[in-house]
């Protein structure tokens, strides 16, 4: 009932704000949310009987709409295609979740997967963050318990959108703690639709990050809450949330470094208090013990360098608290301050070295080929910042400015969060994800401060502020006796402002323009989500001139072919990108997959792909390969195929086998990578080339181009007469996107090479060479 009421209310409000499209719909409502406080205040002076009730109803409806908008804007892929797991890593997560639901939790923890990394196998239970699978499994279990029979795949597909709603709520809570309710609502609306977060949480992208951002934000909320209250209850909540985060994503390291940093900076700012002491001591001990319960993490928290900062700050805090205790007993304060200086300097040096070490570590990792080959490990250009955050990237520094100007304990936290996250996002494009929440929060602060001052009339505002602020104060301080200098100053300024207004015209123009910016943001988000982040990449779509759509379902076609037509224990060799998909969809044994833990094994596959056929056959025999699967995009012009990735295979192979594989052999003398006649002969005869272009030379795609014209690289291929000796074509999908070859068994008897022993001595050459040699020897002796 309440929900219905809220929704209709929100819709009404949205239409009043002239919202248009389906997804834009929620946005003006959200923009109104910034003024939510202001609007509520307007109603307050109008003499409504229960202002608090109105406010909470409005907040609730806005939050609900934000969640709804977040959920529905993530459904593009499901509506356009179907309910399907996306990309690569999600397929592994899906497969393990499936294993979990069919075999139970303990079986999952002990799972040794003999179908991956043949012949090595992989201990899955001990090498994954199980939070994602357990969450999905639990939801599935509960739903089934209620006799809502849902397939586990649908739970997996819709998990990330559901969690984005929870993220919006926790962002609201955190921002409310940091600034005020209006900013919180704006932040919730921002995070619900911002592309930087949608990129990792569309429906079907069943990955750790989807739930981890919720855990991250919720942990931070509980941490801020526990620093504000100093109660063990909130801290234990924070630890539990941290435990969930550790179980879900490797990015928990960010938390375990940011919170100590916060405490350290608070100490430096002489903002030490008992609340901080209680919060951090409890958090460190309980959080440490809880995090060590995850098998994959194990003893890392007390061993590795990235956890040492936390331990150092813990020790420092104890020392500081002890000194504080002594200070009450002793009078020699000068001595103590000196001592404090020494201690903090030592801790600071330790802290800096740790940061320096991690920094160099990150830096070194960039140059390892297997890491460099993953496009997510690239540094970030300004375009991707703008693409993922749009208006927020320009305005969030303003929010940071306001936060630092009105500093208090929790705003120190958000400032540190922003600075560290922006650094990491600059270094690595995938860490944009951790930056996005803080950008939303700070932008919300900036927008909300503008709206707070520019929405509503001067005349009406004359009276309320004093009442309003006291009301707000009451509300905020009801639970605790917590008051900070920054807040008081803000209220003073609010009262000052009420004395003389800027006039209704200026105010309404500013408000209008700001709302316009926010609408543009909403439109941008929708466009980006729809165009850039909503393709499953398992199913491709192409559009004709008249707008009709072709679905290219080659991947699934090929994987199901493997599933139906090959032996259950057949081993399929492919480049590591497709390992998870083969395991997930075809249910066959793979050699390498996206869990790139064994570089030499990957290099071996790369070597097989980049050697000539007979050398490759030896490698494939030694690895018991039955089928080879490659992706070839030359027919439809698909650019993400194996030939375009080929140089990485060569590079990785060269890293391990520099004697046999040389990158320079695959280039033309001019240093170009070409597949046409001018290409290097090594390339034109390597296994990958032959498998990609086998029989392609006979194929004429259209009348303007010669037969064997590769549409991806716009070149006529150089080697059209490809014959195989040890392989045979087993399957080629409809658009030739996936090609599968069968590795033949050894012949009964190895046929002799009928090369006659050459008996004609090459005397001319030898004599000349020997003569030359002698001549030089003479020179040398002299």
């Amino acid at each position, binding site marked *: 009932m309440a929900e219905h009421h809220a929704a209709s209310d929100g819709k009404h409000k949205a239409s009043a704000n002239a919202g248009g499209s389906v997804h834009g719909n929620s946005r003006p409502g959200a923009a109104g949310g910034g003024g939510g406080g202001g609007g509520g205040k307007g109603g307050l002076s109008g003499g409504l009987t229960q202002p608090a009730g109105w406010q909470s109803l409005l907040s609730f409806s806005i939050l609900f709409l934000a969640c709804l908008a977040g959920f529905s804007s993530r459904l593009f892929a499901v509506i356009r295609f179907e309910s399907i797991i996306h990309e690569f890593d999600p397929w592994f997560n899906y497969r393990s979740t499936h294993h979990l639901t069919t075999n139970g939790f303990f079986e999952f923890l002990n799972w040794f997967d003999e179908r991956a990394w043949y012949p090595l196998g992989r201990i899955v239970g001990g090498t994954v963050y199980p939070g994602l699978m357990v969450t999905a499994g639990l939801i599935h279990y509960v739903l089934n318990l209620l006799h809502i029979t849902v397939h586990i795949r649908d739970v997996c597909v819709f998990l990330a959108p559901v969690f984005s709603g929870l993220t919006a709520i926790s962002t609201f809570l955190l921002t409310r703690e940091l600034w005020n309710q209006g900013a919180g609502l704006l932040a919730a609306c921002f995070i619900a639709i911002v592309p930087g977060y949608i990129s990792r949480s569309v429906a079907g992208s069943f990955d750790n990050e989807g739930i981890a951002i919720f855990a991250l934000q919720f942990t931070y909320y509980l941490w801020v809450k526990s620093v504000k209250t100093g109660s063990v209850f909130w801290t234990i909540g924070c630890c539990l949330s941290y435990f969930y985060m550790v179980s879900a994503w490797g990015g928990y390291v960010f938390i375990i470094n940011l919170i100590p940093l916060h405490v350290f900076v608070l100490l430096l700012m002489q903002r030490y208090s008992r609340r901080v002491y209680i919060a951090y001591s409890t958090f460190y001990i309980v959080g440490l013990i809880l995090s060590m319960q995850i098998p994959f993490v194990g003893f890392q928290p007390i061993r590795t360098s990235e956890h040492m900062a936390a331990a150092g700050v813990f020790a420092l805090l104890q020392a500081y608290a002890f000194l504080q205790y002594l200070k009450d007993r002793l009078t020699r304060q000068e001595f103590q301050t000196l001592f404090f200086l020494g201690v903090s300097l030592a801790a600071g040096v330790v802290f800096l070295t740790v940061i320096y070490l991690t920094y160099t570590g990150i830096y070194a990792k960039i140059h390892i080929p297997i890491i460099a080959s993953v496009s997510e490990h690239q540094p970030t250009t300004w375009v991707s910042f703008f693409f993922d955050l749009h208006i927020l990237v320009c305005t969030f520094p303003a929010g940071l400015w306001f936060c630092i100007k009105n500093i208090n304990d929790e705003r120190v936290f958000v400032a540190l969060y922003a600075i560290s996250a922006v650094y990491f996002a600059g270094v690595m494009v995938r860490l944009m994800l951790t930056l996005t929440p803080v950008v939303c929060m700070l932008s919300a602060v900036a927008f909300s401060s503008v709206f707070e001052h520019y929405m509503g009339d001067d005349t009406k505002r004359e009276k309320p502020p004093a009442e309003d602020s006291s009301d707000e104060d009451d509300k905020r301080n009801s639970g605790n006796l917590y008051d900070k200098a920054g807040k008081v100053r803000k209220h003073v300024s609010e009262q000052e402002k009420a004395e*003389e207004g800027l006039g209704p015209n200026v105010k309404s123009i500013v408000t209008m323009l700001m709302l316009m910016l926010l609408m543009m943001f909403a439109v941008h988000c929708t466009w980006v989500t729809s165009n850039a982040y909503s393709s499953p990449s398992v199913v491709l779509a192409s559009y004709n001139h008249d707008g009709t759509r072709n679905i290219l379902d080659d991947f699934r076609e090929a994987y199901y072919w493997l599933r139906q037509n090959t032996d259950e224990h057949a081993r399929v060799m492919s480049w590591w990108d497709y390992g998870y998909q083969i395991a997930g969809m075809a249910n066959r044994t793979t050699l390498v997959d996206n869990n790139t833990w064994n570089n030499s094994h990957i290099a071996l596959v790369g070597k097989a792909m980049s050697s000539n056929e007979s050398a490759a056959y030896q490698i494939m025999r030694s690895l018991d390969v039955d089928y080879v699967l490659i992706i070839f995009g030359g027919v439809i012009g698909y650019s993400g195929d194996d030939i375009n990735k080929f140089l990485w295979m060569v590079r990785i192979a060269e890293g391990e086998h520099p004697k046999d594989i040389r990158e320079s052999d695959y280039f033309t003398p001019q240093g170009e990578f070409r597949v046409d006649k001018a290409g290097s002969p090594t390339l034109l005869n390597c296994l990958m080339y032959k498998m990609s272009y086998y029989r392609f030379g006979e194929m004429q795609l259209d009348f303007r181009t010669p037969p064997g014209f590769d549409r991806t690289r716009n070149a006529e291929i150089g080697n059209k007469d490809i014959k195989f000796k040890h392989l045979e074509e087993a399957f080629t999908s409809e658009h030739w996107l996936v090609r599968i070859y069968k590795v033949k068994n050894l012949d009964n008897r190895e046929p002799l090479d009928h090369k006659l022993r050459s008996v004609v001595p090459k005397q001319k050459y030898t004599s000349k060479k020997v003569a030359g040699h002698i001549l030089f020897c003479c020179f040398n002796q002299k």
Partner: protein
Amino acid sequence: CYIVLMYKVIFCTLLSEKVTQMMEWASKRSVIRMNGDKFRRFVKAPPRNYSMVIMFTALQPQRQCGVCRQADEEFQVLANSWRYSSAFTNKVFFASVDFDEGSDVFQMLNMNSAPTFLHFPSKGKPRRSDTYELQVRGFAAEQLARWVADRTDVQIRVIRPPNYAGPLLLGFLLAVIGGLAYLRRHNLEFLFNKNVWAFSALCFVLIMTSGQMWNHIRGPPYAHKNPSTGQVSYIHGSSQAQFVAETHIVLLFNAAVTMGMVLLCEAATSDMDIGKRKIMCVAGIGLVMLFFSWLLSIFRAKYHGYPYSFLMS
């Protein structure tokens, strides 16, 4: 027969002379500088039992070859690693030819780009693989060392002189700050100035969001000058890359939008007279609108197919 012997003797003395001369030069500086005459005598002229690795470059400032300088540094690192290694012999020498000192050499070898690395083997003609593929392999000293090892069988372990400048500077800075803080220990007010802290935090954030880290890692050029038309473009045409100038522009625009937002708030809250506040307010919203739409238009130019624009296309 006698003539042949004479010939041999002359050659041998010539060779040993050359080798001693080369060794002498190499002991002075690890990369031997050559001009046209030296090049013809020590590299082109036949009696030679040593390999030469030669960098053809243009280091004079008027040539404006930024890559040459970087390549030169790497080459020096490689040559020094070889020169001071225990395995140093007279089998390989490193030399460089500057375009302004030996342009005739460039003509002789029919070369029209710098930097170029060539290997002149101890015997036989240089082959295709004796030209280092700079475009493909880059000019990192490690890559060069691998190439040299490949061509001459001389393994060089690249030892980079550790760069003490960074840590030293940091230490110095910390010492200065610490010293200042100690001197003013009775008046530490300046540490509590929020404006300073807020301003430095903003600077850091703006630097990061404008992609300076990308510049730091990738090292793009400042701007691109079209050689045929002479037109300078400051904005890279693709969304995958950027020029340094472009990031500076973006940094300024971001800063302007931020400042606009701050001004808007200041206009509403400050206790100045109403006229000034109105000006501040208008300036603030103007800054936000103008620079954001400008930024949007730059973004649109880079991200092909982006449909939206605002105020300016």
